[in-house]
C-alpha cells in the first residue's frame, strides 16, 4: 500500500473509531456495556423525588419518582457510574437520600421507557450533584 492510500485508510479507520467512541460516550459511556442498550437519540430530562439509591457494582442506581400530568407517578431507574468511580469523586453512598428532589438528564434505554443512563444530576438548588469534576 502506498503512503497516500495508507493515510486515507488510516483516516477512515480513525474516523470510524471516533464515531464509535462518540457513540460510546454518548450512550453507554461505560466499558461493560453493549452498544445496543441506550440510545443517544432518546435524551431524557426528568424532575422528581429520590425513592431509592442502590450502591452496588457494576453501577450505582438512582430511582426517581416523577409526577405525571394525570397525577400518576412513574418510577425511573437511572444507571450511574460504579460506586468506585463515584467514591473517587468524593461521593458517598449517603450523598442522596430518599425524599431528595433532583433533576436527572441522560439517555433512555432503547426499549424500556423508564430506564435511563444518568448524565447529570442536579439538586433542588439547580447545582450539579453528580457530574463532579467534569462539569
Amino acid at each position, binding site marked *: 500500500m502506498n503512503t497516500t492510500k495508507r493515510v486515507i485508510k488510516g483516516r477512515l479507520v*480513525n474516523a470510524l*473509531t471516533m464515531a464509535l467512541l462518540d457513540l460510546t460516550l454518548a450512550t453507554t459511556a*461505560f*466499558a*461493560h456495556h*453493549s452498544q*445496543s442498550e441506550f440510545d443517544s437519540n432518546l435524551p431524557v430530562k426528568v424532575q422528581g423525588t429520590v425513592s431509592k439509591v442502590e450502591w452496588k457494582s457494576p453501577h450505582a*442506581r438512582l430511582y426517581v419518582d416523577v409526577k405525571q400530568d394525570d397525577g400518576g407517578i412513574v418510577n425511573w431507574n437511572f444507571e450511574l457510574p460504579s460506586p468506585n*468511580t463515584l467514591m473517587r469523586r468524593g461521593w458517598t453512598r449517603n450523598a442522596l437520600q430518599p425524599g431528595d428532589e433532583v433533576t436527572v438528564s441522560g439517555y433512555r434505554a432503547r426499549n424500556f421507557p423508564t430506564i435511563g443512563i444518568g448524565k447529570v444530576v442536579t439538586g433542588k438548588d439547580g447545582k450539579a450533584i453528580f*457530574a463532579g469534576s467534569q462539569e
Partner: protein
Amino acid sequence: MIRWKNEKGPFTSMNNVLSFALLCAVSSAAWSQWLNYPTPGIPRTADGGPDLAAPAPRTFDGKPDFSGMWFAAKTVSDACKKEGCITEERMSRLQVNLGLTLPDGLPYTQWSKDQMKVRMANGGRDDPHAHCMPPNYPRAWTLPQYTKIVQTPGLMVMLHEFNAAYREVYLDGRPLPEDPNPTWNGYSTAHWENDTLVIDTIGIRDDMWLDIQGSPITSRAHVTERLGRPNFGTLEVELTVDDPKAYTKPFTVSFDMAIEVDSQMLDEICLDDEQDAQLYE
C-alpha cells in the same frame, strides 16, 4: 508496605513475602477505605503532592520496581469533558479500538473481520465484559478499573479491581509451558532486558475480545509486553500481539499508565447487581 531502595533503604524478600501475605489477607476481608491516606515512601514535591518526575524506585537488586496502582494515562474523559458527561473516567481510548494510534489500524485477517462484523451487528451484546466476565490482559490495561502491581523477585502479581481478579507473571526463569490450558489471561513468564521487563504470554482463550469493537485474540496468540518505568509516575507498556489467526502480521501498540498514590483498590464485583443484560434486546 513495600519499601523502595531510594526511599527507605533496600527491602528484603521477606518484606515482600510479608507484604504480599498481608495484601492477600486484607483483600479477602472487609476493610476500611482510605482513598486519601498519605502513603509513606512516596517521593513528594514541596506542596506534598507526588513527585511524578522522581526517579523510578528500584528493588534491592537494582531492577525497576513496577509496584503501584496504575490507570490509563490517556482516557476518554478528555473527549467527555466537552460534553460534561458521566463516564468511567479512567477508561483508555484504546478500550474503544486498540489500534486507534496505528495509521492503518489493526491488521485484521478475513476471519477477524467476519468475527467483528457479527460482534458489531448486534451492538456488541456478546462482549464478555458486558456480561461481567473476568478482565483479560492485555485488554485489562485499558479498562477503567485500576491494575495494582505487586512485584517480588520471582513473581509479579497484577491485581485488577474488576471482579477482584489477579494475574501472575513468573520472573523466576521458568520456560513457557508447551501446551497450556487456555485461560482468560494465559500463562506469563518474564525476563529482564536491562531496565525493561519483557513479559511473554501464551495460552489465551479463543473467544477473548481486545476492545469494545470486538477485535479478537485467539489461542494462537503470543503476546509480548515490554514494561518500563522511566520515572516515578509513569509505566510504559509496549504491547505486541502475534496471532496469525486473527492478524495478518504482528502489531505493536504503545501506551502509558499513570501512577495513583495515597489510594487503594476498591473491589468492583460486576455480578453483584448486574442489570444491563436485560436491556440488550
